[in-house]
């Protein structure tokens, strides 16, 4: 795979150097997405689709995460960290303006962070802001943030979509008409169809962006995704869903295929609040009933790396725990009988629209049926899933990919849809949050993974791949997805 990607990168560079100024290049780009966001305020929602439109394009944070997952300067051009690791001094870029013309300064940073950590905050990652003890603004270009304890993830968290800077003048309207500092402005939203962004002519760097207009179109159905690409309606589909047709695109010189990875751990979530899923034996039985290889092959056409816990295989600190619950029907049945369910069980499986969930769900249901668990599949739209499952906690089982980077801490979150409680795990998370030294963090991540696996806290399936399909002339898109984003600030046409 690496070889292929090097070839693709080489081809892109070659194409770049060959492209002469003679040809008129297109200045617009149409990007396909499977999911439509519920709204467009990344500081007020967990849906990855919000970040996939606004991150870096419309909104920026103090730091930013680049396509390789590195932390690079964002609205802060540099920062100093005190000796004790608890005081961060951010030096802000000057001359930055929001899209509504209002200026950006340290007061906006203070406003945005106070809003995110306030009592009535609806930020999906409120935990990112809890270590903040005080925010001081000695002058318009300087922000001093004092933390109550050392936080090894702080700079990375500040580069997430949840920590982008919003202005007091416009924050209230960001859900429908986002106003940020990025190189693109929000232009239009046709619900159910598309969202359009246009170039921000007043962006501080005149050479960014390279495009005049970017359109995000929403196509949930994998077959329709393929047709839209082949029909030329869409220029790039960064998170392509119809894996079975990837070979067709690979064979077609008009398209390029990028095989990367996301941070998305795809899991069969258990509702730990409900019987019988609060019983460890039942959860272990389900884990033994699952056959990851078959799920990845059947639902993903082989694209996806198996996981045995809640940690991406490409990250430092990963432990391979995929062998802890080998696929074993007899063992699963025995565990169910031990838990008093020898005569079988009935559970519901609520499935959001992505193909990994819908197709994966059918295979999971078939696998569970073999051990005597009858699963009723309930397919639902994304909004319905967020309301019923994610917020309403009304489910037995669901399949979803958690795409935030290094988000193992969600199992310690309360309240959260998983409803998982384990004091031992909570202690490891608390220790992790106070640990900066990389070796110490690595050891803690390993322990956390082992606890979740031991507890069969979820049915761990696979790491969601990022299969991107683009027209051969499109360049500058991310290959991997270290954070949920379609950063088009550097995208351009080579021909």
């Amino acid at each position, binding site marked *: 795979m690496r070889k292929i990607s090097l070839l693709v990168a080489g081809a892109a560079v070659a194409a770049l150097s060959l492209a002469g100024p003679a040809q008129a290049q297109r200045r617009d780009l149409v990007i396909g997405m499977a999911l439509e966001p519920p709204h467009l305020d990344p500081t007020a929602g967990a849906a990855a689709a919000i970040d996939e439109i606004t991150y870096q394009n419309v909104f920026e944070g103090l730091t930013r995460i680049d396509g390789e997952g590195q932390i690079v300067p964002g609205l802060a051009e540099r920062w100093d960290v005190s000796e004790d690791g608890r005081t961060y001094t951010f030096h802000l870029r000057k001359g930055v303006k929001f899209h509504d013309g209002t200026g950006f300064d340290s007061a906006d940073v203070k406003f945005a962070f106070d809003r995110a950590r306030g009592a009535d905050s609806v930020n999906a990652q409120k935990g990112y802001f809890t270590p903040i003890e005080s925010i001081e603004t000695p002058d318009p270009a300087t922000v001093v943030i004092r933390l109550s304890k050392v936080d090894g993830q702080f700079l990375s968290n500040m580069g997430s979509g949840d920590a982008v800077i919003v202005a007091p003048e416009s924050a209230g309207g960001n859900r429908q008409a986002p106003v940020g500092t990025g190189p693109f402005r929000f232009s239009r939203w046709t619900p159910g169809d598309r969202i359009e962004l246009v170039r921000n002519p007043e962006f501080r760097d005149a050479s960014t962006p390279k495009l005049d207009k970017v359109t995000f179109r929403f196509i949930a159905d*994998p*077959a329709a995704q*393929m047709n839209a690409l082949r029909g030329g309606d869409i220029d790039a589909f960064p998170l392509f869903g*119809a894996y*079975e*047709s990837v070979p*067709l695109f690979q064979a077609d010189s008009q398209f390029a295929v990028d095989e990367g990875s996301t941070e998305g751990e795809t899991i069969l979530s258990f509702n730990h609040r409900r019987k019988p899923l609060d019983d460890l034996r039942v959860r272990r039985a389900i884990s033994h009933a699952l056959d990851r290889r*078959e799920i990845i*092959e*059947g639902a993903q056409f082989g694209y996806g790396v198996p996981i045995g816990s809640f940690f991406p295989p490409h990250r430092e600190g990963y432990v391979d725990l995929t062998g802890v619950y080998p696929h074993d029907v007899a063992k699963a049945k025995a565990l169910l009988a031990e838990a008093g369910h020898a005569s079988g069980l009935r559970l519901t499986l609520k499935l959001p629209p992505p193909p990994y969930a819908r*197709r994966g769900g*059918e*295979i999971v*249901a*078939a*696998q569970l*049926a073999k051990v005597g668990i009858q699963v*009723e*599949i*309930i*397919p639902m739209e994304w909004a319905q899933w967020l309301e019923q499952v994610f917020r309403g906690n009304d489910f037995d089982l669901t399949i979803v990919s958690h795409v935030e980077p290094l988000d193992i801490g969600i199992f310690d979150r309360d309240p959260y849809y998983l409803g998982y409680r384990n004091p031992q795990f909570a202690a490891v998370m608390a220790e992790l949050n106070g640990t900066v030294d990389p070796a110490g963090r690595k050891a803690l991540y390993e322990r956390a993974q082992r606890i979740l696996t031991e507890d069969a806290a979820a049915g761990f399936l696979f790491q969601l791949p990022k299969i991107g399909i683009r027209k051969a002339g499109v360049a500058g898109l991310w290959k991997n997805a270290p954070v949920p984003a379609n950063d088009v600030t550097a995208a351009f046409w080579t021909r």
Partner: protein
Amino acid sequence: MRNAGLILGLCLTGLLAAMALVSFFWTPFPVDEVRIAARFRPPGGANWLGTDHFGRDIVSLLMVGARNSIAVGAVVIGLGMLVGVPVGLAAAARGGWADEWLSRATDLVFAFPAILSAFLITALLGPGVVNAILAIGIFNMGVFARVTRGAAQAVWRREFVRAALALGRGPVAVTLVHVLPNVLGVLTVQATISFAAAILAEASLSYLGLGIQPPAPSWGKMLHDAQTFMLLRPSLAIIPGLAIALAVLGLNLLGDGLRDLLDPRLRRSR
């Protein structure tokens, strides 16, 4: 050769019924068995018509799918006749304002195309086989009410009905003894044709994810799943498509043939 259509219709419908019946006792493979290693097998070999993207046997899926189609069709027709026939008979018997009201009510049902009202109902009540049946059934109530009323009105004008009335028989007795037996032929024909329409409607709803829910097999769902793999394995789309087409064709031929047989006056001029 006039009955060629009827015979072909009988054969196709018989095949459909046989497939469904046999599926209760036997299918070539367990229908819900996912065998990823065996997916996308081409037709021929152990899997006569090949396997789908989960490695499930197409013949088995078709057989159980036929059973589900027939079950939906039967319940829908039953529901439509149970409500529609009494309404139509009453309208024809009473005439006047009752006829007017009942006819306008069926017009109201007709005003919404069947598939659109099915969307509406499944959108309100959620997808699922029960709601799909309800949606298609409601439309059929109107169909049967209208057909029954028309046929019954014609019977009411006949001499033997006049005679029965003159002899002092009440309208209920006349309806049951004289009118109903004389509209049964028309109703049989209508039931056959409505059956075909119901199979088509169920397939459409399942294709759109509003009908029979996975993992239960359904022809419409097979067609939907096949859409993604159309370029890889066209047979996956062609086979359930053919099954739907042949089932509908068979039932329609049967309906036409029965009409010719049961009511020669309705026979089309040739």
